[in-house]
């Protein structure tokens, strides 16, 4: 049966939905069939702002999931509610597109994975894969080709001078955004929030190597400016040294508040070549190798894609899947479990000030 105008429900009408998911979904074949927010006014505002005044809105996501003809839902609530909503969506037969981080604990990811296995015809994907773009696939092809030789080291750097919700002017008047600073709601700070994008991208390029052990240390102590500094209890900075299978070392720093220049990069080093995606290299993906004769360094570069909004591509792929085609999607529940596990082990290592093994 062909699906020509698939129907989408969106659960959670916060900034990411109004600023990103709704406008992007409206560019596709998908029909926005329902909106939901625990605060019905937010759903109402999102509906009006998007010019879809006839779309039904709900306060309780279970009422949205009860709609028979919905094909898929976007879950864009704070991460603390991702697990129960994902499981209920699966049980209601809806394909799931869920924000990252997928969940706040390995147990929650395991629960999702167990449920997803019961519904093999329903897809579940998390948005931690947002940067699996053409860059990443190009890099993965180079890795798979063996051109890099033995890959021994990989590094992620992500550093923003002042980009925590408490640093941003727009948080004023939007105190609800402060959930980003509460560990019990957000699971962690920039490492949990942004680090998963980088880990997903790197693991995608490397075909999901297994973690063996890691040492990590976080730091919290940059002034927040909040009336009570203790209200912000997630890390400002996280550093990780991880041993991955195959004698591969992974090093990583993530921070959204540091007195250094904006930086984001992924570097992969092998004995006969390197891959680098680095904003200090003009946002180009650079493949470096040695000329076999002159021994000089040679480079192949790829320009950055224009946009990183990936929702239209996801919805396009999901539409194809609904019509019986096959697509590679992610972050899958298995992969999301690996990301959460990596993050939780890092927080555990930091707390215990000791290495944590897989």
């Amino acid at each position: 049966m062909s699906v020509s105008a698939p129907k989408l429900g969106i659960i959670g009408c916060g900034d990411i939905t109004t600023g990103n998911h709704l406008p992007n979904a409206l560019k596709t074949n998908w029909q926005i069939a329902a909106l939901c927010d625990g605060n019905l006014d937010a759903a109402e505002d999102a509906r009006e702002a998007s010019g879809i005044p006839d779309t039904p809105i709900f306060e309780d996501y279970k009422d949205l999931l009860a709609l028979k003809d919905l094909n898929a839902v976007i879950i864009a609530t704070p991460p603390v509610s991702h697990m129960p909503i994902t499981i209920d969506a699966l049980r209601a037969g809806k394909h799931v597109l869920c924000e990252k981080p997928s969940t706040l604990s390995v147990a929650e990811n395991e629960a999702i994975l167990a449920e997803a296995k019961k519904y093999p015809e329903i897809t579940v994907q998390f948005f931690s894969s947002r940067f699996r773009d053409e860059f990443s696939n190009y890099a993965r092809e180079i890795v798979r080709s063996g051109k890099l030789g033995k890959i021994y080291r990989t590094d992620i750097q992500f550093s923003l001078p002042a980009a925590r919700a408490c640093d941003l002017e727009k948080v004023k008047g939007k105190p609800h955004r402060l959930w980003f600073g509460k560990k019990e709601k957000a699971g962690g700070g920039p490492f949990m929030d942004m680090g998963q994008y980088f880990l997903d991208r790197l693991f995608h390029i490397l075909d999901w190597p297994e973690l063996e052990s890691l040492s990590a240390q976080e730091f919290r102590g940059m002034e927040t400016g909040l009336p009570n500094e203790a209200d912000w209890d997630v890390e400002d900075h996280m550093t990780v040294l991880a041993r991955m299978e195959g004698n591969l070392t992974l090093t990583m720093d993530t921070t959204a508040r540091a007195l250094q220049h904006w930086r984001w990069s992924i570097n992969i080093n092998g004995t006969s070549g390197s891959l680098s995606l680095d904003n200090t290299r003009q946002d180009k993906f650079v493949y470096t190798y040695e000329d076999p004769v002159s021994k000089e360094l040679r480079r192949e570069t790829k320009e950055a894609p224009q946009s990183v909004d990936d929702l239209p591509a996801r919805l396009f792929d999901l539409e194809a899947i609904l019509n019986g085609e096959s697509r590679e999607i992610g972050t899958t529940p298995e992969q999301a479990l690996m990301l959460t596990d990596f993050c939780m082990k890092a927080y555990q290592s930091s707390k215990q000030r000791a290495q944590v093994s897989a």
Partner: protein
Amino acid sequence: MTDSLRIGLIGCGDIATKAHVNHLAEAGYTLCAAYNPTRSKAEKVVEKFGGANALACNSLDELLAISHIDVVSITSPPAHHCEQVCQALSAGKHVLCEKPSALIPEENLRIMEAQRISGKKVCFFSSRQRYAPIALKAKEYIEDGKLGEVYRIQARFARRKARPGVDWLTHASWFTDKDKAGGGVVLDMGQYLLDMILDLLNWPEVESLNATTFKGFPHDLPEDRVNDVEEISSIFIRTTSGPLITIDLSATIVDDPIHSIAILGTKAGIDIQYSDTSSKIVYLHEPSGKRGALEEVVIDEGHDGWASKEIYQRFHSAIVNDQETPGTTPEQALRLTTLCQIAYRSAEEKTEIQLAAKTPSA
């Protein structure tokens, strides 16, 4: 005591002839004698750089027996350092010695004991980065409190085709032999960064250390050549109530070289970028008080970032003016050797190794 110190050189290999001899006169030393197992090398050195009546010696004993020599500078392979430092101290000489100071901590303990008995001064060249103007500026800024609480130091040192004994200095086969060199990139390049960073922080206690090493780049060495030293290492160091330190080292890389140190504090950051001619230290802060409005101030630039001559000068002042001996001191050298040994053990056992009581976590 006259202002010019009389110095004897032990070891006349590449580091002696290309680096050390060039600093002696300017730093206030007169080269009086040189010893090298291949005598012709010592002859060339005294001929070109020696003072009047400078001698090429047939043995270490012969050199150490020259009573008017005040200081010896040891530039032999590291497997000889401990024995030669101890002998020179017994002979009543002040000692400067190349890094790594020794192969194992037990050797450092012997050196410390010999130094205590002799009362002479000892300094190792693992402090080459520490006394460069850039590092001194960084230390000044940290000690003045301009950075606030320093919580993270990240050092990277990746050279391209710079494996000694493999990519360059190919005749010096000891570099690739762990029994003779003590190790690879951790000892050879890592000690510079460890020394500088620990000194910036006034030698904090190391709580635990995790490290990985790798060796596996192609090479053209003959099959019978011992080649068992690491080419790559990543080191993760928790300090007691102090910053997290990481040091990433590559003796070779298929990419552009990197040599940088980032220091992050709660009030400001420092970024150091080294290059052969124009190293630069930048102070990053928010003078307007507006978060994210970073202002970049270049504190110093234009040097190569190394301080061999400055070490000779400081050592000279220490002797002539009876001032404090510059580092790397024997005690500090013991710490460097120990940390390197722990790094090797950590890499071998694939585990983080705890060295001191855990800092209570927040």
